[in-house]
């Protein structure tokens, strides 16, 4: 009979981790729908980037208040999770505070966890106030309604509850409190329970323990549906991020081959095209035309909106929001994933990323200034998606704005974006 809690815990563990792994596999499958891109070079630099930007949070602190608060929550998350090891063992084997034998080290650790938990709690309250009371504008852009808004709040509530449960669990553990070590925060909570009988205290302690554990498993599985995936994906995302200068756009190799052929006087214009010499498509109109790095970017985005808050187009009221570009890419990718879940493979159902999610108006508002790329704390590149979609509009659909067509015709005809003769290029010398 006394084994029931252990079995229940084991079941919870298997189901909780099982569903999580299943969903993570789905995400990996979806990311792999993207086109190949080689990011295996410069391993040293990539590791360094990951350590600095993801692990070290170096880009977070460019905005000091939210940056430091985030570091507290992040450090708390990682360090307090050491406690989960004990929880797992206690849960599976019916022990209670199995690591207590470590004595002062144990109480030191638990004490640090308590202080961190308290700091996390306070930080999360400030985060909540920034969203709901101070109403920092980037949390109130038009893409931040319904689910994206609730998602952000849910995460904050989750963290508040989990941190409270951890403290309550310690506060109601009479034996632990009697040690009077490792309880720098919970000792102040214990008096709240002073009128409770030993039995009810024990009950509350057990309940807090169980709700805490169940909460962790729910949170783990909530990740898949949430912007909160960044806690995992920030690491690969910074590792595989672009290392070239921000101004450098990739040169489409398929185009290079064609242009070389066009410019080669010895090329036979009637030669049969090589197998796969011409790709089926230039640029991107759907998520499957993007690279896997761009798709991973979409899953990594935590919708903080730093990109959008520095985007010149967005600041001046244009439709474009780099954050929305990432969110829409993810939404579309999720939709494609669902089709695969249902039908076994992706059959286009008449919708695509372009027009159904991202409009040409958004794409043409971009100045390619790289402010969004610079601002992203986890090195997401919204600009690369915008550029790939412009390529589709122009090279597949000839759908550039009229003035740009004029500009391009001028370049073709006289080698300048304006209608001046190339023969007049040096006239300035004598003017």
């Amino acid at each position: 009979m006394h084994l029931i809690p252990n079995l229940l815990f084991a079941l919870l563990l298997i189901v909780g981790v099982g569903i999580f792994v299943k969903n993570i596999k789905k995400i990996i499958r979806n990311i792999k729908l993207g086109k190949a891109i080689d990011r295996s070079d410069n391993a040293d630099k990539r590791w360094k980037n990951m350590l600095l930007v993801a692990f070290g949070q170096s880009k977070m602190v460019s905005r000091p208040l939210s940056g430091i608060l985030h570091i507290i929550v992040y450090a708390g998350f990682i360090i307090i999770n050491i406690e989960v090891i004990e929880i797992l063992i206690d849960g599976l084997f019916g022990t209670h505070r199995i690591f207590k034998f470590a004595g002062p080290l144990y109480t030191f650790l638990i004490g640090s966890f308590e202080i961190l938990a308290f700091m996390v709690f306070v930080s999360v309250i400030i985060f909540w106030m920034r969203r709901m009371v101070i109403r920092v504008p980037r949390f109130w852009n038009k893409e931040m309604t319904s689910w994206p808004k609730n998602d952000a709040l849910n995460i904050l509530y989750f963290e508040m509850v989990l941190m409270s449960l951890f403290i309550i669990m310690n506060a109601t553990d009479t034996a632990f409190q009697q040690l009077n070590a490792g309880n720098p925060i919970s000792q102040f909570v214990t008096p709240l329970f002073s009128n409770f009988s030993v039995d009810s205290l024990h009950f509350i302690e057990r309940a807090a323990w169980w709700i805490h554990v169940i909460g962790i498993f729910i949170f783990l599985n909530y990740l898949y549906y949430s912007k909160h995936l960044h806690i995992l994906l920030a690491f690969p995302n910074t590792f595989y991020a672009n290392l070239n200068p921000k101004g450098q756009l990739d040169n489409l190799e398929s185009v290079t081959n064609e242009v070389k052929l066009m410019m080669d006087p010895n090329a036979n214009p009637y030669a049969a095209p090589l197998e796969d010499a011409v790709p089926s498509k230039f640029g991107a109109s759907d998520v499957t035309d993007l690279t896997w790095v761009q798709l991973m970017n979409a899953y990594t985005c935590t919708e903080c909106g730093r990109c959008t808050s520095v985007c010149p187009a967005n600041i001046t009221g244009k439709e474009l929001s780099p954050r929305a570009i990432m969110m829409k890419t993810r939404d579309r990718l999720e939709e494609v994933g669902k089709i695969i879940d249902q039908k076994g493979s992706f059959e286009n159902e008449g919708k695509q990323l372009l027009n159904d999610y991202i409009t040409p108006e958004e794409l043409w508002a971009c100045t390619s200034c790289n402010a969004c790329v610079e601002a992203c704390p986890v090195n997401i590149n919204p600009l690369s998606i915008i550029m790939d979609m412009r390529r589709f509009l122009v090279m597949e659909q000839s759908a550039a704005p009229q003035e740009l067509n004029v500009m391009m015709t001028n370049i073709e005809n006289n080698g300048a974006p304006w209608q001046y003769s190339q023969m007049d290029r040096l006239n300035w010398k004598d003017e």
Partner: protein
Amino acid sequence: MNVPTMAEMMAQGKQPEVLFWVGCAGSYDDRAKKITKAFVKILNNAKVEFAVLGTEESCSGDPAKRSGNEFLFQMQAMTNIEILNAYEIKKIVTACPHCYNTLKNEYPELGGKYEVIHHTELLQSLINDGRLKIEGGSFKGQRITFHDPCYLGRANDVYEAPRELLEKMEVELVEMNRCKSNGLCCGAGGAQMFKEAEKGTNEIFIERTDEALSTKSSIIATGCPFCNTMITDGVKNANKENEVQVLDIAEMIVSANKL
């Protein structure tokens, strides 16, 4: 003004130390031509052996590429590369950050490998090497703000060269809130220069110029012909054209040193 072309140089069997890539704006735009000439005056003064391509130069392809027309971009790039390689060009200087970025970052993969520098970087190295001596003249002590061109700054991490030149002129440099890696675009990049902006509540060039004007500077300095156009328009829009000048750093050097 001495402006030799590559063709003339080659006829004399000479190779310049650097090719001056003028760019379309620098060649045709009335405002930008003044920047081109100012830069040439400095080159002449510092006795830099340079040459231009003249009528053999063609658009770098940047606006085509940023519009999504990769075909047109690569045709332009390969045509230019053929000419540059035929002249065995090793080093290129340009006063246009868009040409700079494209030549420096996007040409190498297509066979065009050159050392490419921005004119402010060349001017800085001329001063460091003692080949050019500059003074602040009337700019000394004046409140001046510098607008970072996106394609020089964020795109290629060049923030210091233009600022060091301003420092040499002993101006009072007042930074805008959004400067260096946080600089706000003027609104011209990504081929926006050639089209009307999308519908919005404000124009980017006005947003940026207002920020520059709020520094109470008498001069807004920059290092890009397109930024220059946009911010000049912004200053006109604010009816400040009689009080505030928009100048390229090369122009400031010429005017302060009476070159």
